[in-house]
């Protein structure tokens, strides 16, 4: 079909040819790892990047992006760099037989990728989207079939976990069909997760990888991956752009989420060292909100002229707003972009709706609406959710990203207290970043990137701090996957590694030993079981705190995390804390099996927390008598 592929994708083509030659010419050990593979499992898109470990010398790490074959519409398969993270549950009568074949299977279990997004745009009741955001949504059992949330009862739903597994499976199968001699389960695989993912969500991601045979996969936080990609792209030059004492703020605004991280540059025996010192909360706010906001603006304008919009027209309008927005941002000479929404029938002329999107509107809605000029003392507004909410995602209530950023920087003011290379001025009311790294497609728009820098620098200026500089050269769409592949290489002892450990300290709630007071809830104490910054592969026990567990009966604990209490050691008990300090996560559960014991017997245990090599938190209950261990489960959701 394609005589010209050599011209269009020179890198991929040569790579494939080289691979084919190698597998013929050189007898390789069957189970030798050859590639490091980075998977960006995004809220709206997945990307897979890889690099051949045999062809790497120190200066030349050049990861490729895999073109992922996927159905784009019934009957046609295309290769695209991104796999949209959507899943479509088709009705049995909806698609003709043989129209959903993929290069590796005649009958895929689920429709994922471009086709899911396309079909789902016209039939939203069968579309699963943002499964990733559900994974860290407290109060939902991620293995319960709850998606699509708005589907009628007749539609067989899937769980957020199943959807995540389906995306990974598609990526694995695509890899396998393109690299038949290098099974993915034998490569170094790194999967990225938001820095704000809680332990349960990380555990579920690893479990999903295990379900498709990728038991060796390890996790990496997305903002770290973005920084790795920047380091890798600079080919060793990054040391000239980063200085000791720098605090790099990574701002990642993707399609559905905003993720913030702080990484400090320090010195250790003459070498630059990077430490991830803080991560922000999981903010469900991103590019999709922006497109929707524009569409509603245009809709209001049309309705003022007496034109009513139907649901499908609003959908089409959202699409054209996205394109128009990009055009306005990329071409400063344009002031208005005509928007057209074609009629659905075969008659195109006459039934087509026309309106305009002006630069003024884009600036007002996006720049002023999402990145308002605020003082660093401003905080995102959050009003209590009223009444019964239908099951849905907890979208951010305040669209002002700058307000979320102000809250984050103020909250993390003490993040660098323990690092001697970093000195914050006395009068600082927030942590002063000295450099900024952008990630995520939204920040490709120059106007938005400039505004973000402008607001940040106005805060810094108000406290006589030098302006933060922008670290250039990042590839905003693909950096996370590239950085993840690079991390696989870094783990082999090459290049610089970002230190960090856990981004939070963890606590279990225990009732304090106080006489009961009628009408009052028993006072609860938070017992620290894992301190801030625990490194991978380490574990900590608290042998002095015993719990009596009843055999055969599940015991639940309230579970808390704090991303600011850095000084708490294992065993620290908190009697009082502010809402800011501790976030309550889903409950954790321990069930002691009956094997070899009498039901009802009480066994004294203590807890042990470990950070696995994979990057997940693991809690165990250890018996004092015979040292036997039981795993504590995270993925029990409240209200189950």
């Amino acid at each position, binding site marked *: 079909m394609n005589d010209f592929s050599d011209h269009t994708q020179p890198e991929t083509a040569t790579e494939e040819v080289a691979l084919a030659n190698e597998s013929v010419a050189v007898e390789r050990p069957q189970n030798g790892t050859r590639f490091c593979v980075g998977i960006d499992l995004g809220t709206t898109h997945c990307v897979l990047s890889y690099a051949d470990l045999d062809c790497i010398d120190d200066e030349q790490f050049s990861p490729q992006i895999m073109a992922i*074959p996927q159905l784009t519409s019934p*009957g046609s398969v295309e290769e695209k760099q991104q796999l949209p993270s959507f899943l479509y549950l088709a009705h049995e009568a909806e698609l003709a037989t043989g129209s959903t074949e993929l*290069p590796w299977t005649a009958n895929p279990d689920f429709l994922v990728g471009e086709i899911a997004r396309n079909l789902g745009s016209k039939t939203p009741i069968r579309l699963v989207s943002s499964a990733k955001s559900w994974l860290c949504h407290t109060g939902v059992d991620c293995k319960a079939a709850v998606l699509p949330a708005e589907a009628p009862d007749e539609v067989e739903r899937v769980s957020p976990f199943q959807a995540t597994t389906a995306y990974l499976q598609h990526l694995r199968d695509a890899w396998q069909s393109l690299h038949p001699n290098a099974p993915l389960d034998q490569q170094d695989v790194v999967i990225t997760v938001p820095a704000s993912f809680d332990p349960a969500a990380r555990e579920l991601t690893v479990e999903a990888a295990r379900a498709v045979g990728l038991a060796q996969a390890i996790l990496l936080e997305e903002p770290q991956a973005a920084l790795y990609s920047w380091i890798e792209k600079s080919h060793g030059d990054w040391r000239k752009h980063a200085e000791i004492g720098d605090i790099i703020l990574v701002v990642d605004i993707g399609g559905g989420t905003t993720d913030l991280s702080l990484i400090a540059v320090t010195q250790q025996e003459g070498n630059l060292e990077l430490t991830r010192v803080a991560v922000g909360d999981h903010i469900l706010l991103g590019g999709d909100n922006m497109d929707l906001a524009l569409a509603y603006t245009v809709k209001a304008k049309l309705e003022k002229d007496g034109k009513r919009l139907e649901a499908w027209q609003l959908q089409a309008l959202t699409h054209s707003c996205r394109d128009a927005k990009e055009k306005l941002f990329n071409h400063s000479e344009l002031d208005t972009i005509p928007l*057209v929404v074609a009629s659905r029938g075969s008659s*195109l002329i006459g039934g087509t709706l026309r309106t305009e999107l002006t630069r003024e509107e884009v600036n007002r809605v996006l720049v002023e609406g999402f990145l308002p000029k605020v003082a660093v003392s401003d905080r995102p507004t959050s009003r209590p959710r009223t009444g019964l909410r239908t099951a849905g995602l907890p979208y951010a209530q305040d669209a002002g990203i700058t307000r979320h950023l102000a809250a984050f920087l103020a909250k993390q003011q003490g993040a660098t207290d323990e690092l001697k290379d970093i000195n914050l001025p006395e009068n600082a009311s927030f942590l002063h970043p000295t450099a900024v790294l952008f990630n995520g497609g939204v920040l490709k728009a120059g106007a938005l990137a400039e505004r973000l820098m402008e607001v940040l620098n106005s805060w810094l200026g108000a406290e006589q701090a030098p302006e933060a500089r922008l670290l250039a050269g990042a590839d905003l769409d693909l950096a996370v996957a590239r950085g993840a592949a690079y991390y696989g290489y870094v783990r082999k002892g090459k290049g610089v590694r970002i230190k960090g450990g856990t981004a939070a300290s963890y606590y279990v709630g225990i009732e304090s030993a106080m006489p009961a007071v009628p009408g009052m809830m028993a006072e609860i104490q938070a017992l620290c079981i894992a301190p801030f910054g625990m490194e991978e592969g380490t574990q900590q026990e608290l042998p002095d705190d015993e719990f009596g567990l009843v055999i055969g009966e599940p015991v639940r604990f309230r579970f808390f995390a704090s991303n600011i209490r850095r000084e708490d050691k294992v065993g620290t008990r908190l009697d009082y804390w502010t809402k800011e300090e501790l976030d309550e996560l889903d409950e954790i559960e321990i069930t002691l099996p009956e094997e070899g014991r009498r039901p009802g017997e009480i066994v004294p245990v203590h807890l042990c927390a470990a950070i696995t090599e994979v990057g997940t938190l693991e809690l165990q209950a250890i018996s004092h008598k015979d040292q036997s261990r039981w795993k504590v489960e995270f993925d029990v959701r409240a209200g189950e």
Partner: protein
Amino acid sequence: MNTYAIDLSLKPTTFDLWHVCLAGTVALLSLIIIVLLLTMVISRIRCKKKSAMQQAEPIVKIIEVEKLVQAPAPEPVVLKEATPDAALQLLGLLQKEARFIDFIKEDIAAFSDADIGIAARVVHEGCNKAINEHFTLAAVRSEQEGSKIALPEGFDAAEVRLTGNIVGIAPFTGTLVHKGWQVTGVRLPKLTSGHKAAIVAPAEVEL
């Protein structure tokens, strides 16, 4: 007992009317036989003549065939036949992205230029997207249109078409009227077994 014998040697002694009738009948019958025999002989001769002619015809044909073989015939040209699948696929893509067929099939005479203009935006935007997504296009000549260019001897006549005052020998100099387009990359979707190429846009039914 009286026996009745016929003596054939007897000669008629009398010649009456009965004998005249008898003789006439004999003469008539013999005439008929002669005529019949004659017609048979004639028809035979005719048939023989016909079959002789039929035998002669194939001979003439053989001569004709020999003539064809002997003639110095030109090499038969087999023209490439384009498969309809790729063309149908492109139509499908243009319809999906740009409502191309809807636009072409609509009678535009009844509409105002403004209405057509609005629809043309849909078509232009969509075609642009579809073409850019599936083809990489480049100009054949990178020079500015309207500038003078020189074509060396042996230039590719498929890439550059000469027009106007074509005389003399290469190198030719002339004005670049159109820079030309060439496709340097094609990325058409692959098709599954259940794909019906002829359905360039399925009918849509909302439930």
